[in-house]
C-alpha cells in the first residue's frame, strides 16, 4: 500500500511541461491577448461604430483563448492524464447547454416586454 501511494505521489507531480522560460512565454501570450482586447475596445471600435458587431465575437474568442492558456498551461491540465482532462472538460457541455437555453429564453422575454 505504501509503495503504491508513493508511486502516485512521485508521478503525480509531473515534472515535465512547465519550465521557467515556458511560464514567462505563456505570461507574454496572455498579456498580448489582453492588449489586443484593449486595442479593439479603445482604438478600433470608437473610430468605426460599424465594427461593433465584429468586436463582441472577437472578445469572446480571445477570452476563450486566454481561458485555454490558463487551464492548459498554468493549471497544468494539458500535461495530466487524458482521463482527468476529459472528466473536467466534458461537464462544461452543461454550461454550453445553459447558455443556449437562456439566450433562447431571453429572446422570448424581449417579445413579452413589447
Amino acid at each position: 500500500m505504501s509503495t503504491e501511494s508513493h508511486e502516485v505521489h512521485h508521478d503525480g507531480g509531473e515534472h515535465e511541461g512547465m519550465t521557467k522560460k515556458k511560464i514567462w512565454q505563456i505570461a507574454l501570450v496572455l498579456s498580448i491577448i489582453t492588449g489586443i482586447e484593449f486595442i479593439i475596445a479603445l482604438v478600433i471600435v470608437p473610430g468605426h461604430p460599424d465594427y461593433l458587431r465584429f468586436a463582441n465575437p472577437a472578445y469572446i474568442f480571445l477570452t476563450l483563448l486566454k481561458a485555454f492558456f490558463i487551464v492548459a498551461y498554468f493549471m497544468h491540465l494539458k500535461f495530466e492524464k487524458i482521463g482527468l482532462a476529459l472528466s473536467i472538460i466534458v461537464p462544461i457541455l452543461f454550461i454550453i447547454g445553459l447558455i443556449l437555453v437562456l439566450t433562447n429564453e431571453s429572446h422570448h422575454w424581449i417579445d413579452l416586454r413589447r
Partner: protein
Amino acid sequence: MSTAVSQIDEVKTTPWSGGRSPFNVEYGKIMMWFFLLSDAFTFSSLLISYGSLRFSASVWPAADKVFQSVPGLFESGKPLVFVGIMTFILILSSVTMVLAVEAGHRNAKKEVFWWMIGTIVGGFMFLGCQALEWNHLYHEGFWWGSTPGHEELKHLFNSGTEAAQHLTAQEFANLFFTITGFHGFHVFTGVIINIIITVNVLRGTYEKRGTYLMVEKVGLYWHFVDLVWVFVFTFFYLV
C-alpha cells in the same frame, strides 16, 4: 506444478485495472479539480443570468461611460484604464503562483516562499483596486437596489427612454455587485489560503513532507480565480 499463467489470470497493469489512481494524480488534487468544476458551474450560472437579462434589455449602460475613472488620478475620460491595471495585476499574480509551483518541484524552499509572497501582494493589490472601484460606483449612486438619479443616469447610456434606463441600470448594479462581489470573495479566500500555505512553507512543513503538492493545489484555486476574472472582465467591461 506449472508456472505458466493462463492469459485470464495475468495481472493487468493498465490504468483502469485497479490498484492505483487512473488519473495518476494525488487525491487532494483531484478533489480540488472537482471543487473548481462545481465553482465553475456557480460562476457560469451567475454570468449566464447576466447575459440573458442583458440580451432581453432594450438598452444597457455603456461600459466605456460607466467605467472611465482611475481613482485618485482621473475622475473621468479614461475608459478601461483602471480595470486594465486590475487585469494585469491578477495575471501577474497568477504567473508568480506558477513560478512558486515550479520552484516547489525543485524543492527550493526559499524561492517558493518569495514567489508566494509575490502572489499574496498581487492578491491584496487586486482587492484594493476592487474596493476603490466599488467605492467609486457607490458614490455615483449605484448599489444593490439603488441607482443614480435620472440626470446622472442619462450620461451613462447611448440611447433609451428614462424608464428603460432606470430599469436596466438597476439590473446592471445588482448583477455587477453580486458577480464582482462573489469573485472578490474568492480572491479574498484565495489570499487567506495563500497566506496559510506560505506560513507552512516558512515553517518547513512541506520540506519535511518531501513534496510541495499543497502549493500546487492552492495554485489551482488561484488560477481559477484568475480564469473567472478573465470572463468577468470581458462580459462587464468589454462587451
